[in-house]
């Protein structure tokens, strides 16, 4: 084992050009830039334009002024942002810890049936939103619902409420559905990270009397910290881009009363339009730009501060 510490920058003595770096980067750069970045820039550019007298015109930051200055836009935006933060917080507090815990359990040595468990737990992640939305609406439905029926079985029917329909609980319910669906992602990543910890280090811990919970906490967790960093940032990025699930479960207007509206749904509604609302590319791009900046801030924080500080261990 050894470790690279990224903070120490070795002053390179003038090296010959390392062409292989270009070769390694090139295919990804080309495809990615041409098919993804350029179109996206093209779109984000629209945030500086708007239709003035029927003609597209450069308006500078006026769109942003509207977004934050206009009471209605601002209300929608902040509502979505706050909801999004809650959405993210629930993922961080429910999905990721459970995912990590499941991965830890799966990596218990010599456990039988791991492949089955892993596949079963990952299955929800494989499902399309259409199914997830449908089946959970059905389960939680007060009319046909499985949930009320099951609560009834254990005599807790009174606990049941039409969660998806109440503004107080809808966001939490949708977040939990999303957690259910995506728990496989942190689980897989952490599982892969756990697998790469050398057996001998774990054995040394066993001999040292560090077993079970303590072993996870003191040995495994520090060693998989980079993977946990990844799942956190992926959750962050994923949640701030999320859209489909809310859209399929709660509709584009993210009811009831906008209580499940997150940045993603706000953006899609604005950009592509919905029902009678016409797509407003400029304002959509403006929202997208703001979202991009929020996410960029998060990712940069991760890349430049957290990831750099984080120690990685080579196995």
């Amino acid at each position, binding site marked *: 084992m050894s*470790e690279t510490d990224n903070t120490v920058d070795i002053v390179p003595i003038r090296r010959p050009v390392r062409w292989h770096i270009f070769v390694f980067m090139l295919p990804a750069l080309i495809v990615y830039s041409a098919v993804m970045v350029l179109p996206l820039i093209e779109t984000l550019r629209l945030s500086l334009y708007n239709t003035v007298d029927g003609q597209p015109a450069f308006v500078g930051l006026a769109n942003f002024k509207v977004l934050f200055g206009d009471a209605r836009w601002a209300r929608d935006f902040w509502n979505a942002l706050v909801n999004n933060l809650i959405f993210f917080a629930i993922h961080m507090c429910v999905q990721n810890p459970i995912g990590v815990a499941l991965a830890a359990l799966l990596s218990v040595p010599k456990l039988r049936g791991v492949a089955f468990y892993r596949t079963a737990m990952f299955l929800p992640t494989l499902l399309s939103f259409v199914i997830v939305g449908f089946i959970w609406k059905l389960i939680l439905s007060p009319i046909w619902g499985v949930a009320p029926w099951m609560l009834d079985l254990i005599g807790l029917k009174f606990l049941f409420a039409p969660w998806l329909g109440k503004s107080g609980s809808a966001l939490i319910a949708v977040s939990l559905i999303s957690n259910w669906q995506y728990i496989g992602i942190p689980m897989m990543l952490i599982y892969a990270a756990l697998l790469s910890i050398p057996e001998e*280090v774990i*054995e*040394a811990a066993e*001999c040292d009397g*560090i*077993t079970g919970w303590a072993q996870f906490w003191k040995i495994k967790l520090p060693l998989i910290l980079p993977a946990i960093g990844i799942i956190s940032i992926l959750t962050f990025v994923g949640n701030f881009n999320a859209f489909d699930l809310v859209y399929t479960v709660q509709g584009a207007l993210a009811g009831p009363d906008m209580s499940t509206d997150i940045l993603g749904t706000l953006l899609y509604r604005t950009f592509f339009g919905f029902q009678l609302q016409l797509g407003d590319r400029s304002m959509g791009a403006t929202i997208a730009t703001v979202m991009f900046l929020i996410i960029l801030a998060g990712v940069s924080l991760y890349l430049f501060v957290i990831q750099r500080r984080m120690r990685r261990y080579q196995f």
Partner: protein
Amino acid sequence: MGSLQLKSIRKTYGTHEVLKGIDLEVKDGEFVIFVGPSGCGKSTLLRSIAGLEDVTSGAVVINGRDETLTPPAKRGIAMVFQSYALYPHLTVKDNMGLGLKQAGTAKDEIDKRVGKASGMLSLEPYLARRPAELSGGQRQRVAIGRAIVREPELFLFDEPLSNLDAALRVQTRLEIARLHRSLKATMIYVTHDQVEAMTLADKIVVLNAGAIEQIGSPMELYKRPANVFVAGFIGSPQMNFIAAEKVGDHSAKTIGVRPEHLTLSREQGTWVAKVVHVEHLGADTIIYLESDQCGLLTARLFGEHQYEPDEIVYATPDQAHVHRFDVDDQAIR
């Protein structure tokens, strides 16, 4: 306190039988050394004692209790791994202290013990470093330190000194001997270093291909090897083996003479031979000879001696130290 019994331990990997029924009794406080050729199963045996490896059959009895199924953490052992197995994310200090911390030892006590161990192993300057920033020998010392701070009743060492330089090696060896005396702990130690084996052990266990060849005190093995394998394995350079009939001895199949029990003379002696190669070690001189009668011979002389290749010399075995083996390679006593 730290007695150990192994009852016909067997271990197979797939179809490959690595341990072929090991029976061994280690008394409390004994210092037992496992030696044997590379790949003979020393590490595997050690790991089985630790509980890291599930044995295929047999029982591990510690302090009279059958602990075959006890998890390693509950066996009250400390182990030094051949591959170190340091915790990469912890500093040297924490690597050593983690086990104690886990056991709930007071902070002062931990500091005291870590301080003592790191002093003993000359690790003080590195206490704040992480394993990746250490040299091979330093890592190995940390691994030793981690085991000894825990002061258990049973120590398992897997080639703990293999990466240390001679001076440090002697020093660490003496420390381990002192530790053994002061803790009165049982120690089981794997090494391939003859000096370590001879000086540290109460009892040496010679393993070969997963089975025990001989158990005995160091001098017993040196003086009365039970068979050709042990005779050849203990002692360096290796014992010279000569087909007995070549030298006119018909009561044995093979006779063996250690290099240090051959005297050389330019004038006269038992076997005539030609010098092939000379190694000057300073304190000793190793002379490789080719004799028509006995084949290749090695002689070890104390101090410095000038022999040139192709010189003709006479080698004389010390009759008191000639070993004789039968057709089954067993020693004839």
